[in-house]
């Protein structure tokens, strides 16, 4: 039986991990390799690196990060942020990442999903969706540009479209819940997970171990991603997994 995955997300800016400051035990909390190794040892099932570099020069450094991480990590990892072309995907995947995550670029030019999927296979292509509830729409709307721009897409429609074009996984972030630590958006996660045939990663809102259980059992998520609660040691991957195991959720 496939286990439910716990995925810490690391924000990388100009080649350095930001927000990792609470790891006093680490020599250099900004070093992607040190943090990645730490999470690997903690029992993380996968890692996501999100490149938030604003400049072109900053983004160039992600390839070095990927190479360094790939050299030391024995679990899979995904890289997202600023990937706009097949050439970008090639660079990241050849440097040793297992998957790339597409967000804004895929909405602007959906063929990008086909191109990546045809070239590397669907298992390499994650489509990240930023979702916010929209009264007018009566459903969730897809946002791009780091959640700043609303699009015409309704989330479930876009998720289905992305999968039909070759997305192998959906990374679904609830903007309504993100940062609130009140739990994942169960209704959204369930709706998308039941609408598509590929795995769905729930993201946004994790505050404690129970929230992960909800995301898996009620939200039907295949994996759950969190950043700050792990980075700021409010809980640990180990603790979350121990709790889930106790609750009968199958984890590694």
């Amino acid at each position, binding site marked *: *039986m*496939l*286990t439910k*995955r716990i995925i810490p997300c690391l924000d990388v800016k100009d080649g350095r991990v930001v927000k990792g400051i609470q790891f006093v035990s680490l020599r250099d909390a900004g070093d992607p390799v040190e943090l990645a190794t730490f999470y*690997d040892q903690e029992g993380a*099932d996968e890692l996501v690196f999100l490149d938030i570099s604003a400049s072109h020069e900053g983004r160039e450094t992600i390839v070095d990060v990927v*190479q360094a991480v*790939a*050299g*030391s990590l*024995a*679990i*899979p990892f995904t890289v997202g942020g600023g990937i706009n072309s097949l050439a970008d995907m090639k660079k990241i*995947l*050849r*440097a*040793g990442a*297992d998957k790339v995550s597409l967000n804004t670029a895929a909405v602007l030019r959906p063929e990008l999903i086909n191109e990546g999927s*045809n*070239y*590397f*296979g*669907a*298992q*390499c292509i994650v489509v990240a969706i930023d979702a916010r509830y929209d009264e007018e729409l009566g459903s969730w709307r897809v946002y791009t540009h780091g959640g700043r721009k609303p699009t015409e897409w309704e989330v479930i429609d876009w998720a289905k479209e992305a999968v039909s074009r070759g997305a*192998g*996984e959906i990374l679904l972030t609830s903007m309504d819940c993100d940062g609130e630590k009140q739990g994942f958006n169960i209704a959204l996660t369930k709706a998308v997970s039941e609408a598509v*045939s*590929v*795995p769905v990663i729930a993201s946004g809102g994790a505050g404690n171990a129970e929230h992960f259980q909800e995301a898996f059992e009620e939200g039907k998520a*295949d*994996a759950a991603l969190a950043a700050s609660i792990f980075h700021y040691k409010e809980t640990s991957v180990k603790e979350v997994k121990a709790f889930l195991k106790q609750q009968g959720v199958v984890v*590694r």
Partner: protein
Amino acid sequence: MIGIVDYGMGNLFSVSKGLERLGAESFISDDPKELSKSTGIILPGVGSFRDAMSLLEKQGLDDFLKEYVAGGGYLLGICLGMQLLFDESEENGPAQGLSLIPGKIVRFKGEDVSGKGYKVPHMGWNRIEFKQTSPVTEGLEAEHVYFVHSYFADTGDAYIMASATYDVEVPAIVAKGNVFGMQFHPEKSGQLGMSLLRNYLSLVEGKEKA
């Protein structure tokens, strides 16, 4: 020295880094002449079966691999590389494989016997179970390993060293003589994955010494 086959598809870097962590020397090449100097070969690969075979054929690597194995050389296929070891695949219409292990590559149905749907690809950590003794699993305990695939090998029990369950029995480690295949990614499967690779390296080293 392990030769890693580069035919334009696959995460060569993570395989070679995995070997590096184990202290093994390796080189990446698409040239049969170069690869023939290796003491053992790893055939990695992600992507589609048909594309992979046509790329192998273009470089003459298909015939080379068959000759290499016939000459007693060790070969380990990983993920798509494992699937290529079989006779044929139904991915994107039937395509012929290397026919080093009897069997056919088929797709997960995505629906169980009761008609309930399940996710494809089979992506994530799944526990494997050892089915018979094999030099690659010697001394190891079955654990979770990392899978990412939509197709699996339909093959005889004789060739299945380890398997996982995902709706059906999924061959995880296959072997026939000096040919081995792993459907999951040992280089991404934590401790157990590294130990499996180490066992393969020991086999190859044993041959080097002999």
